């Protein structure tokens, strides 16, 4: 079972308590009515789906209830870090240097 660190609870807890919630850092357009159909389609459906590091949202639904972001390697399933929602994506090179 994966163990995930919740930045709000500041505890590393079993994956069962969490729910995946898609890619992180996707800002809702400020004025949706100005968007073309293609731009709106891209906002709704087109995701980066990378092989490797992925910034994604998780929700600690069976715990504190909060959404937070995580950097996970989609190949190895390893979580590099988790950080509260609203924070910018952490610098990966710094994280890797720290390890």
């Amino acid at each position, binding site marked *: *079972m994966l163990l995930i660190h919740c930045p*709000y*609870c*500041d*505890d590393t*807890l*079993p994956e*069962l*308590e969490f729910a995946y919630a898609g890619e992180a850092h996707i800002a809702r357009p400020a004025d949706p009515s100005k968007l073309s159909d293609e731009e709106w389609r891209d906002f709704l459906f087109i995701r980066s789906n990378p092989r490797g590091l992925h910034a994604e949202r998780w929700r600690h639904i*069976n*715990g*504190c*209830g*909060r959404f937070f972001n995580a950097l996970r390697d989609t190949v190895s399933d390893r979580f590099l870090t988790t950080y509260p929602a609203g924070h910018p994506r952490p610098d990966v090179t710094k994280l890797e240097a720290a390890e």
Partner: protein
Amino acid sequence: MNAPVKSFDAVSVAVLPPVARLNLRIAPANLAVASAAFGLTLPTKIGQGVAKKGHAAWCLGPDEWLLHAPEADQAAIVADFTAARVKAPHSLTVISDREFTIAITGPRAQEFLSVACPLDLSRMAPGTAKRTLFDTAQVVLIRDADDAFRIEVWRSFFPHVSDLLDIALREFACGL
């Protein structure tokens, strides 16, 4: 079929009498107002709990607290919080009837709970509480002492959780 085992030397399971349960949501900056209304300094770290004279509170989320009090005090607490609403906006929901509390006590209580609880309970300190899962049901797990736990289960999940505990008890009783 044999009569269900409710207790043996190592673990006993009992449904506790009703208690007033309240769910409080308030901005952490306004916590002092809630502490004054409840008469207990509410903890700020998730998981931590405090208890005094039958009143108890546990922090379940960044802005969420679970409050326990004797049933007779429920109306007074709600009134106190209603009066405090002018000082700080908050939500206080009475959830007394939503849940049952099951007490699990005994030297093997921690091992017993691991039947369906995914947490590493050895890391959970006495006096703390956590919202977590018990099998597939969301519960609040309270640890009162090294060998004493309470789980708060929504009443619709209660038959499932209760059956699981009965099966586990029988397994423990026959040494499986």
